[in-house]
């Protein structure tokens, strides 16, 4: 309750929604009210924590070895005089994982600019190429090394999944990068890429929310950012308070989700066994 302005605005919005609701809520899909409330509650929690972080409140962030290793990997490439290979997945910018991958690329390119290490970013979608180029260009500018940036460090290979895997494998075998980073959305090509990277002795860091590919990356890479860790990467690498506040907000929501799971299990048990209460599954099911 430290942020009076936040609570005032939230209260105002809630009051306005209640008036709208009791006025007959035209155009509102009433079957989805539970989801709507959940989204507003989660969004508010995130916002509250972001505002707290901006006001200077310090939050503890659990150290993630994979993210600590990013700088180490770039440093290793510098020492060995070899490039850093960054693979932002095989999907387009309409996938949030690709967006998260491009964000991490921005941070990695800052490090390569700082250490004067060459960066190679083969992409499989033209829009990703443009976005990744912009991210790299800005990073090199911010680090005061625009002379080191060239458009071709982010280059297009192909849209096709296995042709892209073949192209990236070719780059790995020919250039032998000292560090390979896989950050984005991956499918079956994940293991082909990671095993080839392993065979050339590169330090490998992967980050993905593609659940089926996580085991492959865990097996073949030195570090893997699993799901939420990957989305939190931007906050960890930038150390910006507003992003760190968001990560803390996510953790608070997770506590609430765990509580809801336990409570729903108890309610379900009571309903199924003794017909006490109501069918909580019906309430929680997305309509």
């Amino acid at each position, binding site marked *: 309750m430290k942020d009076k302005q936040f609570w005032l605005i939230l209260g105002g919005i809630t009051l306005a929604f209640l008036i709208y609701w009791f006025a007959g809520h035209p*155009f*509102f*899909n009433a079957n*989805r009210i539970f989801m*709507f409330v959940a*989204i507003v509650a*989660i*969004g508010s929690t*995130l*916002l509250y924590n972001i505002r707290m972080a901006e006001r200077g409140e310090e939050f503890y962030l659990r150290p993630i070895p994979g993210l600590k290793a990013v700088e180490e990997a770039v440093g290793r490439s510098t020492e060995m005089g070899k490039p850093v290979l960054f693979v932002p997945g095989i999907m*387009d910018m309409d996938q*949030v994982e690709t*967006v998260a991958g491009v*964000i991490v690329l921005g941070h990695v390119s800052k490090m390569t600019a700082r250490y004067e290490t060459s960066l190679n970013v083969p992409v499989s*979608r*033209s*829009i990703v190429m*443009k*976005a990744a180029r*912009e*991210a790299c260009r*800005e*990073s090199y*500018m911010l680090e005061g090394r625009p002379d080191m940036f060239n458009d*071709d460090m982010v*280059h*297009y*290979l*192909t849209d096709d999944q*296995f*042709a892209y*895997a*073949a192209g990236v494998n*070719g780059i790995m075998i*020919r250039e032998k990068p000292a560090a390979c980073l896989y950050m984005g959305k991956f499918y*079956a090509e994940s*293991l*082909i890429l*990671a*095993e080839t990277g392993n065979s050339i002795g590169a330090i490998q860091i992967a980050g993905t*929310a593609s*659940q089926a590919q996580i085991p*492959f990356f*865990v*097996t*073949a890479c030195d570090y893997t950012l*699993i*799901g*939420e860790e990957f*989305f*939190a990467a*931007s906050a960890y690498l*930038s150390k910006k308070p*507003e992003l760190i506040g*968001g*990560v803390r907000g*996510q953790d608070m*929501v*997770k506590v609430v*989700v765990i509580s809801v799971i336990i409570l729903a299990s108890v309610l379900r048990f009571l309903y199924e066994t003794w017909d006490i209460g109501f069918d909580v599954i019906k309430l929680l099911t997305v309509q």
Partner: protein
Amino acid sequence: MIWKRQIPIFIVAVVGAITLFGWFIDQPNIKSFVDDDATQWYDILASFAIILGALNLIKLQLQKVAKKKPGWPYSLVAIGGFIFAITAGFIVKGVDDSVAVWGAHVTTEGTVFKWMFDYMFTPLSATMFSLLAFFVASASYRAFRIRNFEATLLLVAGIIIMIGRVPIGSVISSWFIMYILVLALGIYVNSWKKDKMITFGVVGAGIAIVTIAGMLTGWPLDKPGIFYLPVIQEWIYYYPNVAGARAIMIGIGLGIFATSIRYILGIEKSYIGE
């Protein structure tokens, strides 16, 4: 500056908010924007952007050949393939209009494009895909090496799942598994107590108990169920595995939501380089 900063943030915020809250609004225009129009806009943009990608690809390959960079002969193959695909797609059909008109020729038998797709592209893709079999083997070898408790757990679970899911798994008696467990218990007791007599006693007693129980019950193949491989693998697959997968899913869902909210509210601006 306004074109590179404020305008993109404004577009992201408006379109993001409409997409998110459009799901709750029962209004056909918003519904059609979220479901159809927005995705079609994206497809149109992506179609134009492919030209940029293709130009970038051909430029880099030509540069490699011109400067005779390492591996330049591969670039010749890439350029040749590019020109051949363009020719087969836009210039030479290989059949009359009566057989296939432009556009339909990409899926019609007998055209140059379909020939290229069936006899060059598909086998090459299949070759890359089939490499996975070898990579899975090498990755599994590394993952299953017994280094610590977690790796051992992974190895045991992997073996149970693999054997339990094939026909031979269902003919392995649960009593055989119990004997193996007794021997494993013996190994554990031996490494713990380091006393031959105690180990012998534990193994002997275990074998005797299992044998007597088997003789009394008539050695049924699938009883007790907790030692029958198909039952164990099913339990591992549907309970610990699903629990772990769902925990990761919840984390991913929250991560995606938090990232989206940061974009919609303009908190995360890395995509425009900030």
